[in-house]
């Protein structure tokens, strides 16, 4: 356990905790970005340069910003007077704690805690990764490409604003309830 690892770990975790506990959504999004950055640093620490940089590019650069956009579009800043946590949120926290306990227990009691030694960093140059992508993992690569295309199209279709949906009288559309009321089926 090197000191750098520890610092980075603490940073990541702090960001994550802040992301889930802060009240204002924008603060949560920024904390999340910090957490993602911390993780990227951890990847770099562990010798996975490509993954780390990809992490930065995609997560911090795209996903975190996307989250901010979503907050903006859903008027997340207007809901500050409501409670931050859902009803029976305590149960969820306890459950998460239980999950951590189980995982930690699994880790501690497994052989991994005592056995593996420090090996040298494996060769993970771009050349290697390129070769792997084009030879061994070419099929997943193509599939990923398709998937990304489909996701992009799908996201656009789902999120596009329909012309008549503002009035709420299109066939098949649900009647718009007041905020805070349950939706009821017809």
């Amino acid at each position, binding site marked *: 356990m090197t000191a750098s690892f520890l610092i980075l770990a603490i940073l990541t*975790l702090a960001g994550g905790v802040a992301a889930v506990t802060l009240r204002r959504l924008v603060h949560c999004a920024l904390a999340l970005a910090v957490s993602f950055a911390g993780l990227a640093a951890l990847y770099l620490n562990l010798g996975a340069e490509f*993954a780390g940089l990809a992490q930065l590019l995609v997560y911090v650069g795209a996903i975190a910003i996307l989250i901010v*956009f979503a907050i903006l579009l859903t008027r997340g800043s207007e809901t500050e007077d409501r409670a931050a946590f859902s009803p029976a949120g305590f149960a969820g926290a306890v*459950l998460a704690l239980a999950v951590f306990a189980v995982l930690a227990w699994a880790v*501690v009691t497994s052989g991994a805690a005592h056995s593996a030694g420090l090996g040298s960093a494996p060769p993970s140059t771009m050349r290697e990764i390129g070769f792997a992508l084009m030879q061994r993992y070419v099929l997943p690569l193509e599939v990923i490409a398709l998937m990304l295309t489909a996701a992009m199209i799908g996201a656009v279709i789902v999120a596009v604003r329909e012309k008549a949906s503002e009035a709420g009288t299109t066939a098949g559309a649900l009647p718009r309830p007041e905020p805070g009321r349950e939706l009821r089926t017809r």
Partner: protein
Amino acid sequence: MTPLAGCLLVSSLLFSVGLAGALTRRSAILVLAGIELMLNAANLNFIAFWRFGAHPEALTGLMFVIFSIAVAAAEAAVGLALILAIYRHARTSDVSEITEMKG
């Protein structure tokens, strides 16, 4: 405490933090954020095992993480689009108020 165990513990902790967020926060966006954290914790796991496990020259873990990141990006896009659509219908992004599937 080997480095592997340390990495694994960190990823476990990050995973449970993400789970706690997904399970406790009201806002749908933050639920998604929790999910992203969980995914990231899993990625960290993979990197750790790639680094400290057998056959690191196969680059399996690294590849997996690359693809995982891609998939996570796609999923985040679609998810947030869904949240936008729901917000337009229900006028709220509060998960505890969307109970149409009740009963």
